[in-house]
């Protein structure tokens, strides 16, 4: 798969999802099962993308696991998107420096 064809495909699929309902489908969705399904999709997708990939994204699974734990803790304390991200990245740096020391 070439990068160019992949970029075109991504752009096309994403745009069609937004454009087709705007011009073609003017009927409102009332099916409660479908509304619930669409409501849950973002959370299922984001979690499936994060676990276990985040643990394997760094040089050592230990630092990845620490980063995930730190991100959850800061998010529980209502940290902003940016703060959660920076704390997780800082946790990776600190953990990997510690691993290299031992």
């Amino acid at each position, binding site marked *: *798969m070439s*990068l160019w*064809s*992949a970029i075109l*495909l*991504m*752009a096309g699929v*994403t745009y069609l*999802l*937004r*454009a*087709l*309902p*705007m011009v073609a*489908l*003017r*009927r*409102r*969705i*009332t099916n409660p*099962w479908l*509304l*619930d*399904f*669409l*409501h*849950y999709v*973002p*959370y*299922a*997708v*984001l*979690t*499936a*993308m*994060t*676990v*276990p*990939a*985040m643990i394997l*994204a*760094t*040089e050592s699974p230990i*630092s*990845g696991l620490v*980063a*995930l734990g730190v*991100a959850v803790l800061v*998010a*529980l304390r*209502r*940290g902003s*998107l*940016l703060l*959660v*991200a920076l*704390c*997780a990245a800082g946790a*990776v*740096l600190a953990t990997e420096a510690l691993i290299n020391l031992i």
Partner: protein
Amino acid sequence: MTTPNPATAALRDSTPIALGYFTVSLAFGLYCARLDVPTALAGLISFTNLSSSGQFAGLTIIGAGGSHLELAIGVALVNLRYVLMAISLGQRLGPQVGTAQRLLLAAGITDEIYALGMGRRQVGFADYAASMVLPIIGWTSGTIVGAAAGEVLPAPLVSACGVLLYAMFVAIVVPAAVGSRQVLVVALGAAGLSSLLASIGGLDVGWRIIIVTIVISAAAATWLPTRRADLDSGVVPS
């Protein structure tokens, strides 16, 4: 004129979104650099997609050498919620907004820009279009800066930056899971099933995300129904 122009007001209100997009897209740019995507193409992806989780899923599938089918289904599924927002926005615009204008506004349907529009008493072509401009600039320029920085940063820093986007996903899911028992079950179920399938192996990452999302969302919709107001009712999202 005593009341401010709706388009000017929309442009002003979109500034925090643009700044937020800039910082989040820095992380996407860094992710592109890790996968050796050229800086200009990283910017092109952001400009043509305007979707953090969709782009991230797409890049993950591309990086894992997935097929076109896997890429199309994966990106479509991650971005499925835009269908709902597009239907909702389409109804709010009313019949005086024509097809060409709708096709232009469709490019600017994101969680944040949509929410901003729904928060206004009336949504028209000029104000929705105005609210798209700065966020698109912020999202694209942040990606380019992040991708360019990723090429010159030392290795340990790039390793640390690899968790930025994942951490942001955590920051989106955790507060929602605290506020809703159903979302908590969905997140735990998705994490469990995803880890299980990953440990078994033999499944491309794109298919794994697709299967986990459909199975968990369908199970939750069946056994954990919500009683929330639907997106189409015109209720202002909180």
